[in-house]
């Protein structure tokens, strides 16, 4: 039995990198300040495998794509998600398409990491939940963990995957602690959602730090005798359709909650999924609680207005159940 230890999500990321770099000499890390930030990995694996790059996202990502096609397994840290727009050509046009366009001659085992999310008052050029943009991109996978153990398990799975994986880090989670196994073989497979709380009256689906918002809402709902099931997607692509569908077939109601803008987002996709595949089970409309179609402001007062708060989840649930009751 391996031991569980308390650590932050940031430490869990570091541990995953360390274990995978030890396991596979082809894995290497680069980014603007990666070697500065992960001094211990430089000491353990040498400067060739932990590199500070020039400040140039396009060439960082492009280099990762070329290296991945040629047998290496790069992990790139692009710092904040909005900076990925500079890396878009390499990630979208090259990594996402050239396996297919070459008739399967190449594979692109690379991981691109980026932070995002509210809580730091840094404004829209640092805080932009662009994960759905990559869900919309053929050939790449997308994950966004919610707790330290998942940061470790999903990052390890992403590194081992033979496809490009976008690994989004909700900034607000980095310093949060949780139990993480020291087992180097522990991975969380991509495309597996987790049921964080089971319930019968409504399914609350979320990911990243918004999972905690749903759990808080579920506790408040329980005090009113309403039993909410909370599903943490963990992977946005591949999407664990079955876990969501099974839950909705049981509860008959679906609410999807995320910070990212609602238009053409994950919640919209899940609404389409359940209305296509679980329509007879639905006892009410699918509800989406998402961020607005707006850049995220810096001001704390406005930033908080963007975040789906537990109260909003509770109120929307009560409204949905009320509506359902009056229909019944």
């Amino acid at each position: 039995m391996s031991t569980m230890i308390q650590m932050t999500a940031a430490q869990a990321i570091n541990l995953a990198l360390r274990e995978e770099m030890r396991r596979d000499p082809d894995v290497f890390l680069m980014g603007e300040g990666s070697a500065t930030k992960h001094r211990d990995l430089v000491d353990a694996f040498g400067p060739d495998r932990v590199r500070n790059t020039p400040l140039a996202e396009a060439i960082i990502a492009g280099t990762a794509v070329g290296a991945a096609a040629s047998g290496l397994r790069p992990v790139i840290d692009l710092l904040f998600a909005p900076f990925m727009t500079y890396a878009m050509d390499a990630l979208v046009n090259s990594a996402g398409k050239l396996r297919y366009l070459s008739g399967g001659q190449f594979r692109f085992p690379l991981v691109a990491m980026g932070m995002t999310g509210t809580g730091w008052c840094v404004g829209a050029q640092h805080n932009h939940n662009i994960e759905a943009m990559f869900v919309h991109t053929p050939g790449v996978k997308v994950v966004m963990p919610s707790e330290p153990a998942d940061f470790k398990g999903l990052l390890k799975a992403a590194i081992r995957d033979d496809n490009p994986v976008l690994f989004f880090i909700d900034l607000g989670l980095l310093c949060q602690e949780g139990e993480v196994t020291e087992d180097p073989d522990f991975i969380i497979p991509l495309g597996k959602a987790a049921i964080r709380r089971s319930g019968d009256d409504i399914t609350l689906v979320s990911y990243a730090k918004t999972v905690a918002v749903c759990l808080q809402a579920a506790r408040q709902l329980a005090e009113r005798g309403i039993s909410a099931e909370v599903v943490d997607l963990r992977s946005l692509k591949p999407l664990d359709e079955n876990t969501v569908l099974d839950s909705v077939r049981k509860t008959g109601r679906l609410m999807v909650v995320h910070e990212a803008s609602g238009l053409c987002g994950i919640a919209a996709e899940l609404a389409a999924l359940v209305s296509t595949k679980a329509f007879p089970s639905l006892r009410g409309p699918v509800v989406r609680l998402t961020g607005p179609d707006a850049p995220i402001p810096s001001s704390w007062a406005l930033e908080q207005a963007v975040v789906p708060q537990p109260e909003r989840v509770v109120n929307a649930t009560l409204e949905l159940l009320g509506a359902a009751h009056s229909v019944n």
Partner: protein
Amino acid sequence: MQQAPKTPPSPLTRLETMLLIRAYEHQLVELQKNGAPGTCTSVGQEACAVGVVAALESRDRIVTNHRSAGHLIARGAEPRRLMAEVLGRVDGYCGGRSGSLHISARELGVVLTSTIVGGELSMAPGVALAQKMGKGEPGGIVAVFFGDGAACEGIFHEALNLAVQWQLPLLFVCENNQWQAFVHRLETMPDNAIANWAKGHGLPVETVDGNDAEAVLEAAAHAIAHIRQGGSPAFLELVTYRQRGHFEPDDQAYVAPAELDYWRARDPIDRQVQRLKAQGLIDDNGLTALERQTQASIATALAFAQTSPWPAPETLTDHVYA
């Protein structure tokens, strides 16, 4: 459009402005110790800001980046409205939406500010093109401030090439402060790279001691005269130093203490004080009085910012679309 304040006429006003910039930055650092939103301070780079801005006229435009407080204050921005912006209040230049990292003040001609490194370089040629095509005041030019790190982005070369080919009235101002967040410049580029790269694009390039306000002013005035006369761009590399961390709070554990000492001994404010003393333009009493006056004005600015209201949540989606 409101006129930008008149060009500070003397070395003494440049000292005053540098003291104001530093006091402003230090005040924010104090607030950040208690959890106020972070900033990228321009401590150590004040001479770059006051030197270049002193050479600009009110018809000229400024495009800048995340480390912009010096540029803004040198251009006449009110510390109280800057502080209100950093604190996310309605009286900030951007109503609290920007915070510290993308403060534009159109009324001052500080037109577009991006914290995406290279974003300033991507937009500046367009602002200069508009000046050239008659959208600005006649004869106006554009100054774009960016860092040594931005010179690593491909857009640096794209902007230079376009500006040269299209003969744009654009002054490139690279504040080479030796650091690119947590990576030293010498880890990402050869030592003389910035000036050499710029020269390769075929425009006049000057490398200047960026901690000497008067030298910066002289070089900027010279470059701007070239731009106004010939209608084509010029490039200044201001060699300076980021005395504090990248983004507050930052303990600078990754910085060699000897390097910090070296540059602190070349502090731009101390340099200006020495110069003015040597010329008999200020003495210790005068300096103390000036510092006290600056402190008092920053204290007033802070009180204003802290009592400025928060923006109302209902205004969240205002200004998304025109």
